């Protein structure tokens, strides 16, 4: 029932407006998560909600299997909260909203605040899971607007017109030291402290969430990934893999293979989004418009 409502909402976004058509972006998604070649369990987790064009990836941390618990709980909480918000305007907002971003982006941040609370409460009520936490990077696409929200060192990249931009700033000790100017990027890459996070979901009662927005264009690629990819594969390698694959799924698989070939020191997770034009060309759109205007 609730899912139907969502689909209605999505398909009712008009392919044509009063005077002209909206651009029809088609988002092709591919994803893969992999154990890597060193770890014994996969603490990464991701989920895709095609009806909402919502994509969430998480890298869990905490001993035993608790990292897995944290990443799954965080991702599922985010999906549930966003779905609920789509169906009901009265869904409460968690955390503070920012006037600098859209309602959608604030909703995504709200979902991460709620995930933080859920993971923190789970850890508090189960001493064995104490200290568990997770990174989050999430993307939500509304027509042409891409909302990004993140906590931790999982990243979002945008590959546009041949140049790749990291949309997220890592919440890690070394990255923050680079930002305040007490460490060079070279020192950061060589540091043994790369795994020390300054923010994570579920490790304290509240968390600060970073957000960003982009207007998507045909030909763009959006990549969400855990550090298991970015520590093993360089940015140029990532860009060329995205550009030379025939599908988003192929990109995702090739990126994971590359990370494994280069050592696979950690779990590797990627979500690749390819922004294509919907197959309807201008003439077809005019026909649709004509049909509807008759």
């Amino acid at each position, binding site marked *: 029932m609730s899912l139907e409502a969502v689909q209605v909402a999505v398909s009712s976004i008009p392919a044509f407006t009063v005077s002209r058509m909206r651009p029809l972006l088609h988002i092709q998604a591919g994803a893969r998560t992999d154990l890597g070649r060193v770890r014994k369990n996969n603490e990464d987790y991701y989920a895709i909600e095609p009806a909402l064009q919502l994509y969430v990836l998480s890298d869990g941390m905490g001993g035993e299997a608790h990292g897995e618990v944290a990443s799954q709980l965080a991702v599922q909480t985010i999906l549930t909260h966003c779905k609920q918000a789509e169906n009901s305007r009265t869904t409460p907002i968690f955390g503070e909203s920012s006037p600098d971003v859209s309602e959608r982006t604030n909703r995504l941040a709200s979902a991460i605040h709620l995930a933080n609370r859920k993971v923190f409460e789970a850890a508090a009520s189960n001493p064995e899971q104490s200290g568990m936490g997770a990174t989050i990077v999430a993307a939500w696409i509304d027509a042409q607007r891409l909302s990004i929200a993140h906590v931790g060192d999982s990243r979002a990249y945008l590959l546009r017109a041949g140049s790749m931009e990291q949309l997220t700033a890592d919440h890690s000790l070394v990255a*923050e030291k680079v930002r305040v100017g*007490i460490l060079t990027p070279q020192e950061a890459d060589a540091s043994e402290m790369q795994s020390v996070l300054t923010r994570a979901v579920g490790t304290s009662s509240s968390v600060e969430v970073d957000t960003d927005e982009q*207007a998507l264009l045909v030909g763009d690629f959006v990549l969400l990934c855990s550090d298991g990819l970015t520590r093993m594969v360089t940015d140029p390698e990532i860009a060329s893999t995205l550009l030379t694959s025939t599908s988003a799924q192929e990109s995702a698989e090739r990126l994971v293979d590359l990370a494994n070939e280069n050592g696979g020191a950690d779990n590797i997770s990627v979500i690749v989004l390819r922004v294509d034009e919907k197959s309807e060309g201008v003439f077809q759109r005019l026909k649709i418009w004509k049909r509807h205007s008759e």
Partner: protein
Amino acid sequence: MSRLVLMFEAAPLKEVPLGTRPVTIGRAPDNDIQIDNLAVSNYHARVYVEAGSLVVEDLNSLNGSFLNDIRVERAMLKDGDAILIGKHEIFVDQAHDAAHAEDGLRKAPAPRVHETMILDTEERRKLLDLAVASGERSQLSPERLRVPTLTVLRGRTDQKEYRISGKLTVIGHSKMATVRLRGWFTPEIAAQINKHEDGFYLGRGDHVPKINGVTISGLTKLNDGDLIEVGRVRLNFLYRD
């Protein structure tokens, strides 16, 4: 036995026992604790016992010595204190017996490389202080206090002037556009402006815009007074008071 432990990024580099002789700290190689970093003066500071108390004394260094994040010239030390010199920290460990030392080790295990972990609150606080300090510096830049605006010099738009504040400002015909271009055959998204920590950046849309007559190649930072051309529309990017 009491000792000083030199740390860099939470990793111990060196230990020096505390005896009757002062322990010297500096960049010159003849120091007891040598720190090879340009932020450290040749003879930067020393630690010694005076009247039964352990004391740190800054030797008029250029960048200062910090005791628990406060700049000091001369200060008494106690067990667990941290002296910050440049990017290095020197911990005061006045453990009295082996058991105590063992205990201390268990409380603060060496971080395991590649094991993701969250920074403890103490370290976080230090980092936050640094971030605040750097933020204060950037707030001194005059642009920070002024309002970024786009003034329309030519072209059909819904307003003549726009204040820009959000993370994303779209120029185009699209409903999500802040600067709405009118007329048929205008692109949905002609160009976009992204707000970053250090300012506003112009990026392409379905068109590639020009700044001051030059077609941009990738994201380009906007400076006060820049002339933006997108198709037939001309905009002036200005920081206003």
